[in-house]
């Protein structure tokens, strides 16, 4: 007796609790088994790369907030680093430390969100995500203290940061850092040791290191597959060469390991921030830009405009989601000639079909959660 089954198509998204935004997954199913998966994106496409070509270099900083809106600081940082590389600006010491602090705080906030939603995708009824959002909120409070905004921070500037931190910032941060290790212990105990989470995510969406490298994965996806590659160590920027931390890697290359890597990275972030709080020097927070590269256009009322020399630069940082790169081509004009974002969560979706085919819908949701996409960054 051979059962003849008909495949059918199911649309996960664009409105679905587990797609983390307007993301659509077209699954061809045989029963509960996925036999083909295709992602359909672009619902949040805002054509940022084109828009950026029409705005000055400084005006583009807010755009970088809105690509990866869960981790705005790192978006800012990667962009201003690309422009600085183009203009060969030396950033003052204190600004570099402030950038490190902000980037690491952002990593804490982003990984808290990613871990919580991953647990949610595994089927916990909102509890871990609420607990982790509690920590994220505290980090966002710090951001508010530093730059007045919580989500779209717009903090970094070409040549430094927009303003210095207030005096109460570091004590508040130290207080938070004292709380966090216990919390992270709690999450690891409750989630990483949870039998059901293990059952749901161990051995799901396995990628070998060779595959991970071939698919250009980055961030926790790459490290979850066991490749010790972290741009903070490999290509240190800001003040990362002055602090001590470890790269967290997984050993099995599955969804569980990606989650475990994120949790371990939160701990490393706390470690980095503790060192930052002690070692941050006094000094200027903004480089003096050459007058040749900064000039008003037209009349004196118009804003000062940064004009990098002709050329191109590719700057990359380790954002919470992976290698966030900005490729900027300048023609010497006041706005970029070409502005390209190497979006980690977009490229991390490349092996999506390979990861989901043969799984069930329930697994597909876990896979998507382990990739940790931000649709703003996927679509740009």
């Amino acid at each position, binding site marked *: 007796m051979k*059962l003849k089954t008909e495949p059918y198509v199911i649309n996960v998204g664009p409105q679905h609790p587990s797609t983390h935004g307007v993301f659509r997954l077209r699954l061809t199913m045989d029963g509960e088994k996925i*036999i083909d998966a295709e992602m359909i994106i672009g619902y949040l496409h805002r054509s940022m790369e084109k828009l950026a070509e029409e705005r000055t270099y400084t005006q583009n900083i807010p755009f970088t907030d809105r690509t990866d809106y869960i981790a705005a600081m790192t978006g800012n940082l990667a962009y201003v680093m690309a422009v600085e590389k183009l203009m060969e600006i030396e950033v003052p010491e204190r600004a570099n430390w402030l950038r490190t602090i902000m980037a690491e705080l952002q990593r804490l906030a982003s990984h808290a969100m990613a871990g919580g939603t991953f647990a949610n995708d595994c089927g916990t009824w909102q509890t871990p995500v609420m607990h982790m959002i509690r920590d994220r909120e505290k980090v966002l409070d710090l951001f508010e203290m530093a730059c007045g905004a919580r989500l779209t921070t717009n903090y970094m500037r070409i040549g430094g940061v927009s303003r210095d931190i207030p005096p109460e910032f570091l004590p508040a941060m130290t207080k938070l850092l004292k709380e966090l290790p216990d919390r992270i212990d709690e999450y690891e105990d409750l989630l990483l040791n949870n039998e059901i989470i293990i059952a749901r995510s161990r051995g799901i969406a396995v990628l070998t290191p060779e595959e991970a490298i071939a698919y250009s994965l980055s961030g926790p996806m790459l490290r979850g597959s066991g490749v010790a590659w972290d741009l903070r160590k490999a290509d240190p920027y800001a003040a990362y060469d002055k602090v001590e931390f470890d790269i967290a890697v997984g050993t099995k290359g599955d969804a569980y390991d990606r989650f475990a890597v994120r949790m371990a990275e939160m701990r490393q972030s706390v470690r980095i921030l503790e060192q930052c709080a002690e070692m941050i020097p006094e000094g200027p927070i903004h480089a003096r830009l050459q007058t040749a590269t900064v000039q008003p256009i037209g009349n004196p009322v118009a804003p000062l405009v940064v004009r990098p020399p002709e050329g191109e630069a590719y700057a990359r940082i380790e954002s919470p989601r992976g290698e966030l790169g900005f490729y900027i081509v300048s023609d010497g004009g006041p706005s970029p000639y070409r502005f390209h974002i190497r979006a980690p969560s977009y490229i991390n979706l490349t092996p999506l079909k390979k990861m989901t085919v*043969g799984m069930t819908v329930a697994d597909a949701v876990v896979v998507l959660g382990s990739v940790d996409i931000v649709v703003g960054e996927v679509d740009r």
Partner: protein
Amino acid sequence: MDDTGTVVAFWAMAIMTVGSALMVGAVRNLIHAVIFLVLSFLGVAGLYITLSADFVGVVQILIYSGAISILVIFAIVLTPRAGRDNSETSMLVPGVVIAGLVATMLSYAAIETDWNISSREGFEETAQAIGEALLDKYILPFEVAGALMLVAMLGAIIIVRAEGAESETVEVEEVEE
């Protein structure tokens, strides 16, 4: 069958049973037919209960309404043309004829038979009486039936397993292409 309540219950249950059974044949949608089948089973269970056979009545709900109907649903869902209704069947006339014949025969038998009316009271605990009968007097048929079902179940598992393993490899090949 004397007091008003029992009479009312009997007629309600009888109408529900027979009406639903008729609807099973009359509706064009297979899933609707299953739902009516469940209603019919429930009616029969109600009849059992009015006859103070509460154990049989509850087992009727458990086995027929709960389990058998799910099996029927499975069968329908696994049918390649599950979505169709049965309006194009050519078996309508023969079905009606056979059903009519059976109904006539049963009614004839029911009317013509000289039913013995027992003066004995019903069992206090039908469950206990049935249990004792099954495990005492009729132990051999009971065990034989059990063994038979076990064999049937094992056979089904073996058939499905062999086929399932084969079809799975086929699917994997398709995916890799």
